[in-house]
């Protein structure tokens, strides 16, 4: 079979991208860009004048090749058939990020802030490029359908997400991972085991088949679809039971994706709190990333926290598989014995090991050598980079002084005292602690802004790390827009009957309890 469609689609996508580049770089769009910026600096001009140009040229060339030549059956044909769909996702992600999301933000600002929340509606509902990209995907697949030339490419979105998660490994410091890792092991241990136990218990109570209860418990407890697939052989689940489970997970995942960020904004949660909650309470890995980026679209601190929790959860998968195997054999005397070790080795998600590999590489300093950080920005002489204009002003120091008593942790009190005394952050360690004060939101917004300013004055990010952040942002934007194109109403309708009821009770309990625990435990961590 020949997979690549002889179609002008990719060529046209390339032309659209080149048109965006041309209009933006020639100044023809200046008026519109000024409107989108809404009085601020438009953040995406650099992206339009580079990404749209590069991808535009590539797409026009490959598009012309696909349009005018006849593909031959084979491996190359199969993989080349994915290019048009992948570029279709990228085009949608670009349009949403560069134009639709800023337009929605502009509209929302015109409507004014919402009541006592003090927030604009687009902030409150998380209507940013991530959520709007997913919504665009859902609209396209359910109302317009994915064109035949794009079908294969749309199935690359999960590959994009996995690549993004692996690259995320480059952004953690050992201290961050140790700090978050301990917390995530406790939280995930409790909630994963708790939800697996609760699903199995409810399944017994409602007398659903053991295979159904087993596969549903893995999906509800661990990491959604991957866990369902890994657990299915050990509990000998039938196709229809897997379908019910995946449907239930999808239904919950999509609902969480939209509801979690709104709750997070309403409760004014910190990045760490929200990341921990999303990583614990949302069932499926992709939706965890989506919710984290929806909560904080212009940075990846929340995503980093959420992914640590998510990866910890994936690492628990072997324990759950062993548990379910033992549980199932005990209940079903005639069950065929399955080689659990083999199943675990076959089904364990290897991309998690990739994340750990890149994290290990990054701790050696290859991507951000320590010399980049020392002296230059924390020294106090002109030679070492001291700039008087970057010192905090008197009024800013007064605000910090008046709020310093709100800080409870000793290390934070000391770091902020040194900042007040010197009007600048004095060391890399202090910088990390001050960032923690900002993220914990223990001070007023005004004081938070001052601390951010002090942080920016000394921040120096390695060029390599900056580039990794860009790659990660785009891989997730691509993956999540494509994910939206895979969320069909019919796939969610697969959820039904008792499995959906059990899933709803367990999903809601996990989300509510983890929210309480996060708000209670993580008031000032990190």
């Amino acid at each position, binding site marked *: 079979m020949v997979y690549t469609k002889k179609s002008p689609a990719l060529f046209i996508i390339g032309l659209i991208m080149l048109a965006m580049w041309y209009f933006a770089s020639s100044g023809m769009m200046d008026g519109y860009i000024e409107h989108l910026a809404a009085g601020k600096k438009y953040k995406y001009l650099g992206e339009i004048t580079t990404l749209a140009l590069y991808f535009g040229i590539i797409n026009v060339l490959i598009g012309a090749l696909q349009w005018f030549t006849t593909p031959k059956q084979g491996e190359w044909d199969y*993989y080349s058939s994915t290019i048009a769909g992948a570029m279709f996702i990228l085009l949608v992600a670009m349009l949403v990020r560069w134009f639709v999301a800023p337009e929605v933000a502009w509209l929302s600002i015109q409507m004014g802030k919402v009541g006592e929340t003090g927030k604009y509606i687009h902030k409150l509902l998380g209507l940013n490029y991530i959520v709007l990209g997913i919504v665009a995907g859902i609209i396209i697949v359910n109302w317009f359908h994915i064109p035949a030339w794009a079908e294969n490419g749309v199935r*690359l979105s999960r*590959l994009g997400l996995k690549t993004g998660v692996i690259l995320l490994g480059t952004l953690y410091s050992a201290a961050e991972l140790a700090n978050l890792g301990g917390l995530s092991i406790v939280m995930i241990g409790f909630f994963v085991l708790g939800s697996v136990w609760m699903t199995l218990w409810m399944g017994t109570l409602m007398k659903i088949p053991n295979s159904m209860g087993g596969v549903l418990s893995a999906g509800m407890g661990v990491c959604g*679809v991957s866990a369902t697939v890994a657990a299915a052989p050990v509990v000998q689940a*039938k196709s229809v039971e897997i*379908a019910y489970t995946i449907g239930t997970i999808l239904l919950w995942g999509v609902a969480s994706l939209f509801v979690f960020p709104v709750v997070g904004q309403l409760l004014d949660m910190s990045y760490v709190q929200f990341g921990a909650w999303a990583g614990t309470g949302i069932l499926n890995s992709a939706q965890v990333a989506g919710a984290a980026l929806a909560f904080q679209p212009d940075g990846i601190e929340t995503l980093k926290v959420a992914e640590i929790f998510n990866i910890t959860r994936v690492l628990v998968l072997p324990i759950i598989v062993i548990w379910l195997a033992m549980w199932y054999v005990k209940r079903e005397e005639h069950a065929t014995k399955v080689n659990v070790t083999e199943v675990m080795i076959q089904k364990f998600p*290897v991309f998690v090991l990739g994340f750990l590999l890149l994290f290990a590489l990054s701790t050696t300093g290859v991507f951000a050598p320590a010399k980049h950080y020392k002296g230059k920005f924390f020294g106090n002489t002109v030679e070492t980079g001291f700039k008087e204009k970057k010192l905090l002003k008197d009024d800013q120091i007064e605000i910090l002084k008046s709020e310093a008593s709100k800080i409870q942790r000793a290390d934070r009190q000391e770091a902020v005292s040194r900042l007040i005394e010197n009007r600048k952050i004095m060391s890399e360690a202090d910088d990390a602690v001050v960032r923690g004060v900002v993220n914990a939101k223990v001070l007023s917004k005004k004081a938070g802004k001052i601390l951010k300013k002090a942080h920016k004055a000394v921040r120096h990010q390695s060029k*390599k790390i900056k*580039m990794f952040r860009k790659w990660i942002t785009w891989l997730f934007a691509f993956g999540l827009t494509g994910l939206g194109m895979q969320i069909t109403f019919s796939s969610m309708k697969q959820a039904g009957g008792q499995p959906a009821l059990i899933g709803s009770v367990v999903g809601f309990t996990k989300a509510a309890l983890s929210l309480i625990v996060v708000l209670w435990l993580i008031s000032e961590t990190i």
Partner: protein
Amino acid sequence: MSEEDEVTTFERGSALSIFTSDRREDYMALTFALIIAFWVYVAY
């Protein structure tokens, strides 16, 4: 029982992926990530 059995509407791979197994997709993601990391390391 595999994911492919469940959701197949495609001759190769599943509705979620072009790859014949999750493991293969993981290896591809790892390969891409390492290529990107190497490129960033060399070029920046």
